[in-house]
């Protein structure tokens, strides 16, 4: 499939970001190239970890785009009960449709975390892989010169039309050590989750589930040195929504 670039679009997207709304649409020529805004709160959950500690976790994105291209702002992070925020990540990406099911994405990522903050260049793809796996795969190059890769995948298993079991996995691989932020080269961490949601509507679903996380290799060693756990299992209770 050929994807045609509309060079006026970036300017219009920027304008929409400012105005933040739809204009009234009259003809097909206007609607078929319209800029759409979508807020997705994929996960907004309380994690009750083994030690009884409660952590608020969020992951969401805002897309402002046409069918072919646009901007994505993504954020995720966690905050233990009573604070302060333990980690927060922000990405601003330009996305462009490269096949029927996938966008290529390029941009920056900024991590605000305990210890030094990091800024990364991001390149990756996001979309729907065969057999209905939602995939977000990215390469990061930090301002310290460290390279890492993150692969996220999730799958919706329909128990009924509204009750949906969602296994999800995330793998992080670093190609060098960045001890200051506690990341060592090799497979640094893995996460597995299983969430059962009930779609009250397509746009709003409460869920419960479990989330398992583990650090590996040097990353695990750094964590041990800091006196942190390298493995945790949490029960989660949350909502997901989009509009």
């Amino acid at each position, binding site marked *: 499939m050929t994807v045609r670039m509309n060079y006026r679009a970036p300017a219009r997207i920027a304008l929409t970001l400012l105005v933040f709304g739809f204009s009234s649409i009259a003809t097909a020529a206007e609607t*078929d190239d319209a800029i759409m805004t979508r807020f997705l709160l994929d996960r907004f959950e309380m994690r009750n970890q083994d030690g009884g500690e409660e952590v608020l976790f969020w992951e969401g994105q805002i897309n402002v785009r046409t069918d072919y291209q646009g901007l994505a702002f993504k954020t995720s992070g966690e905050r233990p009960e009573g604070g302060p925020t333990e980690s927060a990540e922000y990405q601003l990406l330009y996305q462009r449709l490269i096949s029927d099911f996938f966008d290529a994405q390029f941009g920056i990522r900024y991590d605000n975390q305990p210890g030094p903050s990091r800024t990364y260049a991001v390149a990756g793809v996001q979309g729907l892989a065969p057999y209905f796996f939602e995939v977000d795969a990215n390469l990061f190059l930090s301002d310290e010169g460290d390279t890492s890769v993150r692969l996220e995948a999730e799958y919706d298993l329909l128990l009924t039309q509204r009750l949906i079991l969602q296994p999800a996995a995330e793998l992080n691989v670093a190609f060098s050590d960045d001890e200051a932020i506690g990341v060592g080269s090799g497979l640094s961490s893995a996460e597995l989750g299983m969430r059962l949601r009930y779609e009250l509507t397509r746009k709003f679903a409460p869920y419960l589930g479990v989330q398992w996380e583990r650090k590996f290799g040097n990353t695990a060693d750094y964590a041990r040195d800091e006196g942190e756990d390298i493995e945790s299992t949490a029960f989660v209770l949350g909502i997901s929504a989009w509009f």
Partner: protein
Amino acid sequence: MRLSNMTRWLLALAALVPLGALAGTYDLVIDRQPITIDGKAKTAMTINGGIPGPTLRFKEGEEVTLNVTNRLDVDTSIHWHGLLLPYTQDGVPGISFPGIKPGETFTYRFPIKQTGTYWYHSHSGFQEQEGVYGPIVIEPANREPFKFDREYVVMLSDWSAETGERIFSNLKGQSDYYNYNQQTVGSFIKDAKDKGFSATLKDRLAWGGMRMMPTDITDVSGYSFLVNGKSTDDNWTGLFRPGERVRLRFVNGSAMSYFDIRIPGLKMTVVQADGNNVQPVSVDEFRIAVAETYDVIVQPKEDRAYSILAESIDRSGFARGTLAPREGLAGEIPELRERPLLTMSDMSMASMGGMDHGSMGHGDMAGMDHSRMQGMDHSNMAGMDHSQMAGMDHSNMAGMDHSQMSAAVPNNDYAPGSGLVPSAANGGRFLVYGDLKAMTPYADYREPDREIELRLTGNMERYFWSINGLKYSEAEPIRLTQGERVRIKFINDTMMSHPMHLHGMWMQLDKGNGQFNPLKHVVNVAPNTTLTVDVPVDALGEWAFHCHLMYHMASGMFRKVIVEPPAVQSAAR
């Protein structure tokens, strides 16, 4: 060539001169008002205070003046669907005219050069979904070629509590937003019991590999289906005296919904399609694509109520009306039939070729064949269950099944093995396009001068639709020359049906009936099929050409067609 063109010009000019002083003025006011239908309330858009708008009754040869007043806070328009008229009167904003601004009245003027059943609707935004539509009936100057004692318009439509803009944005946000009939763990277990675990697994993997769903029959659900603006509960009723011949003018004014229409207990004689008379054909059931019209004649003889049933093709509901000898009667409403499933036959090679991985090995195909067979068996069985087969024993059922299978004329409107092939609820005759033969042969029937191939394309996941891979906003107009006969070859590369509508000119549907091929304004192109139509290019100007599914049109399956006079150079050459 030049001479014959000139003759045609003269004839066209002669046709434009009104023969009598027949002229009518009609006023339409488009407004917004709260409406509750089937318990679903919304601030809808109405014409003259109602949904649908008033039936406009014209007479062939009449000079009509239509004053359309816009009381909305947004632009509007009215397009006269299927009418042959000067392109500036066609009512498509951005092509025929700028549209009608809030508070303004636009006056349309054109001569009526045809007869039959048509309709009108807004061509702005999603106003048609909101209620801006109504029927048109044009009486012939001379007498009708068939007899009937009374007639009714039966206008079908789909009514949603959501606005069109909301529906569109929901589809853009999640293309399966409205599909609450997806395959689940439960249906996997059931299918595994019926067809075997490995066949079922292969089936799921084949579809999953393509990231497509066999349950994707319609894009939007949650509709109430209406007959002349009335829900099933409100039961629109047309009266008859037993033995009378009743002409029913079916118009599908839906935004997104196809229907299978039947009147249990009555044969329907189809006498007209898209406003053009056809040789009468007696059927038990027919499918009406979005924006098509069919006129049928029925003869109810008993002193009882007959249900007019228009069952949506995703089997999510009926648009239901009643023919009754007196008010207050209602016929039976049967159970909905089994929801169809798409098969691999409905997937084009092009869309399969578009897969990232060649996951369709021969093994997978075998798996699909299996499920396809199941699907066909199932629909036939279901059809019989609901009619006269209930009391019969198993052996009769098997015999019946067999004869039905072998006697059935293959429905070549669909891909062989398609899951969408309809069958009549009573096991009888289901209308196919090939049954539609023009009442009179088309005088200028000849080989086309050239062929234009249009691939119907789209992105199911991101929900945008296109022609030859390009959306309207990206595409050049299609240029035609007046006087030529152009063959349009539609190749549907998607897994959805597309009712393609050409404004201003006829499409002569080629189903092998030669000069009796019928003239239509909408043709349904089924998934993974090729359909050809010949267009006698006889109307100068700029015209719209699009899929009439509202959200396909809005997201890009649309073209502008420009008809130009023959170039001076070519005439001089």
